[in-house]
């Protein structure tokens, strides 16, 4: 019987190479310069010269590695720093703004909410399950490192279109990874969004958000103060994972990928780490604590010292390693997951060791806090690196990237000329089956959204709602963003992301508190991309001002480009709102038959419909070739703010029983979602015909909310709206005969059974994924 055996050569070989490389003598400072090694780390000649002048000598190999990660885009925010400074970040409730691992907002009762969003786009493109999973793991650490108990997760996702097998693979695996991590660690994943567009074909976006609760007195920070205080590494052992992940997040160099082996997440380890860290922080013996994310020990130690204006001496030979013969360089740059850096009060290191032992984890003292302002790395008695902390952090380059308004923006046309559909209902069914519009149940049923038993509104409504134990209050949570709109109008698109997030919270009965943002863009070295970045950030700032929601944390992801194509500029807004009374919780599905249906917010103005087909998913469906050639609707922030005030007040007065914001897919989609989710039909009337009717039905971009009102409250709602000078248009009534019927100027344009609506909307993604 013939039998064969094959060994796959190249992987084994590259492992051997890596091992020999590690064992090799470390290059000298001279060689780093002569051979231009710093370039392969991503440093420019200019940056190298700057390092030489800051140090007053040539940096050694380890030092060069440390500078390269600290000065990378990922850690230094060198391209974005100047722009981010313009965000409004202050507010009466802000307890911690940007700059720490997560922002914190006061919610009364001595409690606060900590939250942050972060991208893990590049790792996901390479290994979607682990890339997405470790993204979730990282953002959870950012929250519990503040002393907060993580209570909810959200995720904002972008993939290429599902007709490509590769995209289906990336999508399925990312969802599995997100669920795999959150489910295991026991934090409910309660919301998010998913958009499909070929612009994300090679650059999927995975942005993960974590929300935590904290008592005011328990807030911990990432500071390394107090000379002589011990520094500990706690949690997982260090391996050769993802070395240079931060620097090479953008590199197209194949060696870079080889080098930065993908990190594998261990949610079980993180669950133990989470419990141990919270227990440790509660002892009051922790001086500072910071998670080790990108650039691992290097960035965590430099940032902790920088915040305190102190120095640190660390001995890498005391770091517990998973692999043999790891060099100082590798230990400093490893991105192994599930680790934290902790500074304890001197003499209390045993407290950390006891707590960690209970949870079966290691806590090893690796150094001390000094007052000389130096990050000094030893390997036993040998000094491997000695760098002023200020040189790494404060002196990191800040760039003034040129911004140029892209030509396409000046070539945009007004509304497209589409023929009016014979049957609006058929177009609505097709629209509901577009993966971007369709129900995301296929996604969120893979997430445990209920663990902790505080999830009062599960995924599927405008925002998720979770209870705040012991208070009778709740938090509403959402993420929103629409890259196509931002592409077509960067400023208004940025503003709209904020407005939409706030509107989702308001529709749920909440008062928006603050924003965390994840800014995903292409290559910032392209002036057109930088323009998109700058303008959309400015638009977000304006909306944050108008809606009084300061930015308290965030993250930037650049270089989301492949083959010269940049993704849509995709700022994602994560927002948290406070619901003062559980009785105010409101959801989007219709609740009962023979209720009045209103649209709050103007349907039209002097220029016709307030919505526009430009930028809409409907236009992308009807005429994909021209989807990017028409301007979207302008945004009126004053009108938006007024609309939100009305909705909030109407909910507070218990005038409305359901509220749903009108967003992707437009007004008919919003009606259909209310109907499908509530299993109720309606008989509705709209005005107009021709193009105006089409953009009213399918256009996007206007500030509108669909509200359901019991007849006995209809007059009160109309009065309130008049008083607040916001339009409230009565469109008709819900019914109990299971059909959604819409007519316009006496003509029936939609007549579809609710079951059929639901089938198109709910089954679409599943049918792609079979």
């Amino acid at each position: 019987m013939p039998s064969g055996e094959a060994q796959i050569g190249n992987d084994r070989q590259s492992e051997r190479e890596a091992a020999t490389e590690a064992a090799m003598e470390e290059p000298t400072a001279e060689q780093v310069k002569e051979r231009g090694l710093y370039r392969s780390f991503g440093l420019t000649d200019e940056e190298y010269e700057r390092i030489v002048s800051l140090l007053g000598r040539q940096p050694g190999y380890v030092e060069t590695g440390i500078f390269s990660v600290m000065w990378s885009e990922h850690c230094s925010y060198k391209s974005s720093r100047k722009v981010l400074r313009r965000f409004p970040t202050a507010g009466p409730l802000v307890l911690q703004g940007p700059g720490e691992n997560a922002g914190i907002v006061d919610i009364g009762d001595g409690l606060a909410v900590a939250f942050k969003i972060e991208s893990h786009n590049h790792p996901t493109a390479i290994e979607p399950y682990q890339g997405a999973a470790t993204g979730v793991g990282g953002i959870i650490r950012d929250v519990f490192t503040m002393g907060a108990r993580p209570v909810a997760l959200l995720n904002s996702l972008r993939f290429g279109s599902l007709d490509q097998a590769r995209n289906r693979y990336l999508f399925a695996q990312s969802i599995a990874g997100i669920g795999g991590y959150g489910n295991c660690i026991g934090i409910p994943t309660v919301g998010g969004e998913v958009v499909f567009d070929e612009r994300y074909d090679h650059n999927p976006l995975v942005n993960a958000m974590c929300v935590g609760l904290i008592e005011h007195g328990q807030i911990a920070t990432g500071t390394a103060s107090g000379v002589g205080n011990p520094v500990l590494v706690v949690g997982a052992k260090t391996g050769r994972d993802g070395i240079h992940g931060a620097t090479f997040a953008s590199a197209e160099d194949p060696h870079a990928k080889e080098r930065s082996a993908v990190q594998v997440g261990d949610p079980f380890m993180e669950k133990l780490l989470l419990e141990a860290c919270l227990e440790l922080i509660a002892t009051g013996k922790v001086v500072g604590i910071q998670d080790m994310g990108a650039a691992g020990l290097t960035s965590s130690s430099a940032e902790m010292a920088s915040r305190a204006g102190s120095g640190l001496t660390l001995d890498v030979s005391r770091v517990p390693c998973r692999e043999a013969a790891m060099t100082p360089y590798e230990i400093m740059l490893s991105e192994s997951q599930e680790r934290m850096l902790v500074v304890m009060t001197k003499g209390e290191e045993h407290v950390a060791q006891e707590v960690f032992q209970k949870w079966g984890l290691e806590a090893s003292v690796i150094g001390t806090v000094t007052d000389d302002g130096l990050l000094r790395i030893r390997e036993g008695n040998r000094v491997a690196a000695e760098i002023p902390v200020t040189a790494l952090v404060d002196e990191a380059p800040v760039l003034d990237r040129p911004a140029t308004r892209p030509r396409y923006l000046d070539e945009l046309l007004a509304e497209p000329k589409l023929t009016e559909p014979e049957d609006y209902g058929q177009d609505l069914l097709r629209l509901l089956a577009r993966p971007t519009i369709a129900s995301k149940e296929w996604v969120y049923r893979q997430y445990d959204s209920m663990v902790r038993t505080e999830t009062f509104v599960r995924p599927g409504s405008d925002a998720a709602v979770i209870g705040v134990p012991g208070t009778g209050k709740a938090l509403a949570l959402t993420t929103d963003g629409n890259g196509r709109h931002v592409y077509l109008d960067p400023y208004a698109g940025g503003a709209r992301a904020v407005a939409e997030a706030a509107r989702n919270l308001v529709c749920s009965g909440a008062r928006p508190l603050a924003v965390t943002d994840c800014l995903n863009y292409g290559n910032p070295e392209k002036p057109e991309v930088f323009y998109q970045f700058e303008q959309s950030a400015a638009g977000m700032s304006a909306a944050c001002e108008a809606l009084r929601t300061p930015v308290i944390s965030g993250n930037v992801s650049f270089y989301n480009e492949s083959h010269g194509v940049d993704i849509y500029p995709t700022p994602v807004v994560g927002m948290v709102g406070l619901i003062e009374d559980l009785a105010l919780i409101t959801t989007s599905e219709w609740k009962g038959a023979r209720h009045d249906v209103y649209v709050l917010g103007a349907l039209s103005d002097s220029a016709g419909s307030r919505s526009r087909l430009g930028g809409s998913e409907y236009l992308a469906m009807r005429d994909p070739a021209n989807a990017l050639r028409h301007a979207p609707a302008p945004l009126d922030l004053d009108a938006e703010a007024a609309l939100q005030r009305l909705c909030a007040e109407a909910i507070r007065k218990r005038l409305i029983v359901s509220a749903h914001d009108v967003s992707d897919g437009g007004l008919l989609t919003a009606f259909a979602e209310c109907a499908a989710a509530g299993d109720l039909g309606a008989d509705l009337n709209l005005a107009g015909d021709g193009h105006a009717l089409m953009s009213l039905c399918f256009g996007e971009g206007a500030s509108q909310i669909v509200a359901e009102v019991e007849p006995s409250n209809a007059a009160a709602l109309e009065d309130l709206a008049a008083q607040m000078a916001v339009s409230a248009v009565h469109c008709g009534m819900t019914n109990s005969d299971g059909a959604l019927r819409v007519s316009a100027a006496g003509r029936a344009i939609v007549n579809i059974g609710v079951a059929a609506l639901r089938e198109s909307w709910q089954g679409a993604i599943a049918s792609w994924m079979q």
Partner: protein
Amino acid sequence: MNLLAKIYVTLKGSVLDPQGAAVTHALHALSYDAVRDVRIGKYMEVTLSATDETQAHELVRGMCERLLTNPVIETYTYELAEVEQ
């Protein structure tokens, strides 16, 4: 000819294997102190038909690289044997 490919997929040496680590721990807790290390991977039995061995090797390598493993974190080996029926 009909063949059985036995495919062994393992995580690359430097990639963290949390499952293996947990099982090592558990074995130690059960007093299997003699155990130094555990790595956990996948084992697949694929039955297929091919015109000859060369083609079979090609098929198996192809499916391993395209679907059955992710070369970023995994490696594989396999054995191929003719079977009856």
